[in-house]
């Protein structure tokens, strides 16, 4: 593939995320694969696009539903691209995060917002969904070896699930391998400390800031 055509396609992939149309972006990455573009380069183009949207979200030009839609398109694309890549795939990412809403809680808006923002900031996010069993969290940490575990809850009746997960991490000797951040309406800084989490995010933006702090990543400004 000629360099100029390749650059053009990469640009198109990045910009296509702003169309918020899954088909457009997916067609473009399939086209790139067919033309034997390096998978990592495709991911890089997508990440650039998503980061741009993240920046535009920060400045108020892009709204939450757009950011979330772009992140979800990114996820679809990653599912397509994953079979083509080797272990080195996360080399372009800032870090890996496992996220989920705790058992008994099926609220996912807040968690999805945090996921989207993290992705837009260049993190690889593995989303376990809602109503996640403590065992499932532990298993994911064993499998994916993330830098961060992020848990969310909306109901006051479910927040103690977070404590359960942290206790299980300790029991399985994984607590020192992963930083834990929690968030959601009923949580607060004090509660995070009490259950032994490493950080608390007051909202989605704050969650990203705290994650960066935990990983020692300087905030751009």
């Amino acid at each position: 593939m000629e360099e100029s055509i390749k650059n053009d396609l990469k640009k198109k992939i990045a910009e296509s995320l702003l169309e918020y149309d899954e088909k457009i972006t997916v067609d473009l990455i399939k086209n790139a694969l067919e033309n034997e573009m390096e998978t990592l380069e495709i991911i890089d183009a997508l990440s650039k696009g998503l980061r741009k949207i993240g920046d535009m979200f920060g400045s108020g030009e892009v709204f939450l539903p757009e950011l979330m839609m772009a992140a979800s398109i990114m996820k679809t694309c990653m599912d397509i691209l994953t079979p083509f890549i080797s272990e080195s795939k996360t080399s372009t990412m800032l870090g890996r995060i496992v996220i989920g809403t705790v058992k008994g809680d099926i609220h996912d808006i807040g968690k999805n917002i945090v996921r989207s923002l993290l992705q837009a900031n260049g993190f690889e996010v593995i989303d376990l969904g809602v109503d996640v069993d403590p065992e499932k969290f532990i298993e994911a940490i064993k499998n994916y070896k993330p830098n961060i575990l992020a848990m969310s809850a909306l109901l006051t009746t479910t927040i103690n699930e977070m404590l359960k997960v942290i206790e299980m991490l300790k029991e399985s000797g994984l607590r020192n391998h992963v930083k834990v951040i929690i968030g959601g309406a009923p949580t607060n800084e004090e509660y995070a400390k009490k259950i032994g989490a490493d950080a608390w995010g007051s909202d989605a933006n704050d969650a990203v800031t705290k994650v960066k702090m935990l990983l020692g990543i300087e905030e751009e400004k």
Partner: protein
Amino acid sequence: MDGITISKPIRLLDNDEMQRIHETSIQVLSKVGVVYEAEWALNILKEAGCEVDHKKQIAKIPEGLIEEAINKSQRIVKLCGRNQKYDLTLEGAKAYFAGGANAVKIIEYKGGESFISRPATLEDLIKLTIITDALENIHCYLSPVYPQDVIQKGVDSVKCEIALNYTEKHFYHDAEGYKGALNQIKMASIVVGGEDKLRKKPIISLAPCITSPLVWSENALGVIKACAEKNVPAIISSEPILGATAPVTMAGLLVQQCAEVLSGLTLSHLINPGTPTLVCTLPSVMDMHTASIILGSVETGMMCAASAQLFREFYGMPYVGVGAVSDSKIPDQQAGYEKALTALYGVLGGVNLMHLTSGMLEFLLSVSYEQLIIDNEILGMVLHGVKKLEINDETLALDVIQKVGPRGQFLEQKHTIKYMRKQLYLPTISDRQSREIWEKKGAKNILIRAKEKIEEILKTHEVEPLEEDIKKILRNIREEAQKL
């Protein structure tokens, strides 16, 4: 620029009530009469059939003449901007906003709870003009301040020069009599390329104002004459004060202001039948305790809504009213609610061009930069808030409700992305963050946020400059007008 058309303006008057107001106005004009402080005007009126008392300078106008003037008044009035995208069409119940005018003081925000009041300067005028040009919810420009640091003779030409240089929007001005009006018309025609072009593209309109009750000064008559001769839109204005220069009853005020603007229209259309005219009223209230004149009262909103109905439904002409005004001395809560209330009331009534809407405080004496920014937001919310709801298959959203289903959420739907910008008003300086984030960002009050916005606009906003030789001609005309 597209105004917002109110689908069902509120009606404060029944048909027969409007008829009675009109009939009483006719009685005032034909029995009491109106003072015209210029012989030439009295002569024109006499020749047309008015009963004139030259000694008292009073003309009593017969009903037929008034009907003629009403018939000759335009139903639709187009006002143009130097830039075509700012052209306005005043008709029906379509609403636009025009900025504040002729304040003499600036309220400066000094942080915390501290404000100072100081005279307005030429520098303020230029800055406020640039800011007004940038604000998306102010569709038409008036000179926000009357600069106190320039030679006061010919100051109308100073304001005209600033308007021509620093805004691309339509501007509407007062003028110092016949000569002052001609001067401003000349300046505007130079910018558009001649008087003929100005007729097709009226970037300026002038506002002759009667002195209530029932006196046309020589100055105001001169402005009527200049507009009619040059086919420049004349905004025939009346500014009665409830209980002071007009009866204390709102019905009585409506009668008097109708008589007043009709007396101006009559003269305009006798000088030049069919000349572009608009009617404007600014009904204020005298506080019966303190004798101060107040504008931010709910009565102003009521009277503007009633006037809008009367002029739209009964007379069939566009109406310039007032709103988003306040008597507060600083940009505070009182300013917020008075402005929101008077703006919403008038627009719901169908005011076509609401003027004095932005930056003004302390009746009409002061301008606050911060308030100007806040008002732009209030006006945006009002414009959005009076839109007709869009009802169709797509907005009824059965498909997306079905797709999301119970327990789902709508945030991540294409439907949401497609409609969110249209359906929701997106504020520019209102704070909607969580307390934690707000505190982290410095816990800024609205005045500080508005101040930041002002700095950003002054740093980034560009007004298309006039050509150098045109600028020079304008400067010469202005200097000539200011010679003592």
